[in-house]
């Protein structure tokens, strides 16, 4: 027979104030105006979304910000039905997706919504468009989700 031993319950909660810096700040200000910004590299011509300060391939500074399309194509997706866990900012069920916004060169990670949460709700290649929250808080969830079009 195995003996049960005690456990000690202790919660560690440490609030952080993460400095957004100039790039996230500018990107979030764009979201408040319902604009999604990317940054274009002069050297390799790639457009990265979200915008960033330097090209991860060429390490050139990216000074050229461009407003990118709010429509694109689902590259991949996952339907999460599973349990909610501590710290989750959006509660399941939801569909996360990699979305290639038109004329950009990196995949944008966000939710797909406006569909029944079902395993066959969506397929790779599905065209989607950004849907905005009415109230803007200047963060990533100002985009409510991307909904299927066409």
């Amino acid at each position, binding site marked *: 027979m195995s003996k049960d*031993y005690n*456990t000690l319950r202790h919660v560690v909660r440490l609030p952080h104030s993460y400095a957004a810096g100039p790039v996230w700040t500018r990107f979030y200000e764009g979201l408040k105006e319902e604009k999604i910004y990317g940054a274009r590299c002069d050297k390799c011509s790639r457009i990265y*979304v979200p915008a960033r300060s330097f090209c991860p391939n060429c390490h050139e500074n990216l000074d050229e910000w461009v407003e990118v399309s709010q429509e694109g194509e689902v590259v991949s997706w*996952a*339907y*999460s039905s599973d349990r909610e866990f501590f*710290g989750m900012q959006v509660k399941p069920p939801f569909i*996360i997706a990699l979305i290639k916004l038109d004329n950009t060169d990196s*995949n944008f990670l966000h939710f797909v919504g406006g569909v029944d949460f079902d395993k066959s709700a969506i397929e*790779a290649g599905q065209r989607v468009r950004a849907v905005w929250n009415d109230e803007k808080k200047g963060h990533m969830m100002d985009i409510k989700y991307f909904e299927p079009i066409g």
Partner: protein
Amino acid sequence: MGRPVAIIGVGQTKHGRRFDVSYPELVKEAVDAVFEITGIDPGDIDGVVSGTMPSMMEGVALTHFYFADVLRSVGKPIMKTETCGSTGASLAITGYYWVASGMADLVLVVGSEKMNEGDSQATMTTVLEPFYQRYFIAGAPGIFSMQSQEWSVRFGIPEEKIRAAATKLTIDHHKDAFDNPYAHIKKELTEDEVNNARIITYPVRLWDVCPNSDGACAVIFASEDKVRQMDRKPAWIKGVGYSGEEYWFGDSDKVVWQSAIQASREAYKMAGITNPIEQLDVAEVYNPFTFQELLFYECFGFCDFGKACDETLKGTFARDGKLACDPSGGTLCTNPIGATGLIRVSEAALQVTGQAGDHQIPGAKLALAHAMGGVDQYNAVLILGSEL
């Protein structure tokens, strides 16, 4: 190229839900085991490497200091290595470097985890920054599901075929685990049970996913001089390779997966492997998800891209197949994450020294060990051999 290095002994705990011991007591089990098995005097160890998942999963920061006494590290150099899921493989590489450099002759390397004490999936979310990606990471399964979906679309693999191959893998591994005395989950599964199990993140179902395990693994790395002084079979480190990727998940290709391909090719080159499926006898592939195991077979060149399901269904990677993969049951059956990569290395060492017991692949001489870390951001591969 540094000096030759060998693994001279491995110790594991019984992995599972280990509320019967405190965290340091759990680590002590693995450390005591490796000293008992090798007969090495802890005083002869030159340095200690310890690693776990991020502190948020441990509940204690600086675990290597917390474990200082059970690691027998007092008065010795100690360092921590941490690369998320690949921590154990990175630990092994750290120990290897220390001995290969000539700065140490005997190094104790220990990986550990007590996943059941904390909230593993909540911790996984904190691996990502809060500005962008943290919103979208539903623990590990969401990311791995997206990766496998992209893989199936890229190579036009029918969903039913992936399901069939994944089902075979999980049935085989959970059965193999019965022959591994340290494995956590051992179960006779039926196809119906697997195919109709609860969906975690579509298309990944319950039996496609590894468990939360508590466990520790301790390994001693030795220089050639030390090996020659001991009457023990060494497992020589023949090759190491590891590679990382961009931080932002959407920036890199996770199907034709650069870090996994490059890590394996670097390790192959160092070990003189040109045809892995012919030359390797056994592979301990990091398989927290069945679907990802299939993709790794392709990235490591065990078969062409898009062909892993066919080869798996033919039995190529089964225990009696051409290249036995995860005869221990793998990560799918046992996942104390900070130890997991080191368990892969340990299993490879046991195989090439003929000490794997009931799950020994007969005559195994050359083995691959692998682990993956971060949000699909990092891969590490080691090749171990029975001959220098």
